[in-house]
């Protein structure tokens, strides 16, 4: 088998990056983002990127570092409220922005990976989101048509992976990662832990290896938390 395992992010991305490309990046907020791959993309200097990601990181971390370096030309997201630089670049016209409702974004990506070029949803009917799109009634309800979405490259963060590319995710760090793994012409994955083939439970593989072109064990997982909210242990 063509070996899928790379030694690091740079090797895993080699030959896959080009100016003007579309990249899907997993994660919700800073949770489950492929931080090693984002750092390597920053280092590569590739530019004019269209990035599909639910959010755009924060100032100085996550996809935010690709805003700092002005490598992103356009974002397709559902919420970017965490990022001040984003606001500046958007208002100054340096950054293009396409908002999708979060569920529509998730489904567009799932559809793209599943060979479905378009589907209908109630979400966004009667709002700005439906403008310029086909709306149609089914069984007395009105729906808007949304298109499937694919990318030149998907960058994904998983918890564990094996050399076949079988992946599992952990808790809410799963989020957009599994759909994006299916919707990239190439899919590159960073994992926290590489395990032996056969070590993952076959009934519970979240992303089968067929979707994974290359994977590697991430060197660093900073895993920043945006909003640490805690409670105090009651005295007993």
């Amino acid at each position, binding site marked *: 088998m063509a070996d899928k395992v790379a030694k690091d992010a740079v090797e895993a991305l080699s030959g896959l990056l080009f100016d003007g490309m579309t990249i899907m990046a997993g994660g*919700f907020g800073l*949770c489950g983002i492929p931080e090693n791959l984002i750092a390597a993309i920053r280092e590569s200097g590739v530019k004019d990127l269209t990035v599909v990601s639910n959010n755009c990181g924060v100032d100085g971390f996550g996809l935010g570092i690709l805003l700092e370096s002005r490598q992103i030309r356009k974002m397709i997201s559902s919420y970017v409220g965490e990022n001040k630089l984003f606001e500046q670049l958007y208002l100054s016209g340096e950054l293009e*922005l396409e908002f999708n409702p979060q569920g529509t*974004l998730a489904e567009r990506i799932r559809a793209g990976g599943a060979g479905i070029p378009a589907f209908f949803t109630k979400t966004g009917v009667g*709002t*700005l989101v439906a403008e310029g799109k086909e709306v149609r009634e089914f069984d007395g309800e009105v729906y808007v048509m949304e298109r499937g979405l694919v990318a030149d490259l998907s960058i994904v963060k998983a918890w564990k992976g094996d050399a076949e590319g079988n992946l599992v995710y952990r*808790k*809410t760090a799963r*989020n957009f990662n599994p759909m994006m793994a299916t919707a990239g012409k190439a899919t590159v994955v960073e994992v926290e832990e590489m395990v032996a083939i056969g070590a993952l439970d076959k009934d519970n593989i979240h992303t089968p290896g067929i979707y994974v072109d290359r994977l590697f064990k991430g060197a660093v997982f900073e895993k920043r938390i945006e909003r640490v*909210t805690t409670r105090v242990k009651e005295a007993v």
Partner: protein
Amino acid sequence: MAWTREDMAARAARELRDGFYVNLGIGIPTLVANYIPEGMHVTLQSENGMLGMGPFPYEGEADADLINAGKQTITELDSSSYFSSADSFAMIRGGHIALSILGGMQVAENGDLANWMVPGKMVKGMGGAMDLVAGVKRVVVVMDHCEKTGAPKLLHRCNLPLTGAGVVDLLITELGVFEINRGKTPVRLIELAPGVTVDEVKAKTEAAFTVAV
């Protein structure tokens, strides 16, 4: 004496029923979790991919891989399950969530809701709000009755960009509770906060409404 934020959350909690699966928005709706009646089984969905949200973690026990849709660290319960964003919104869009409680900027007589964008100001994005109001069976909005300027927020028609058209079932403000019924019937004021008069509500409301308190 209008309701406090806590009062509004407590009132919203009265919309819960045993066995309900519920999605709570950011702000006052999040507080609703503190008012789930003892013995009532309510399961909280977090649209980033979780059913069965637990309380905030104890100090020092936060897990970066476990956050809610407001990006706050949370905990799991014995009954929790995790899934992808596509599966989460399949659940929402497919009408499997009984109740969504969320904040609002404007609500109109016809059930329209605006809560995501103020043109000319920075746009943060709609996140999952459009999916929630389109897909969830019953939508309860909790918001201040007026803007800080005093301008009413319960209107004939919304003038901000919509989150959803004809989607609001119930509106809770610090002054009272309004049955909106997705605009299918005239708006009815069905509860008043203590000490609030119908005249005060009328003065602060643009929408037409009938009184049934």
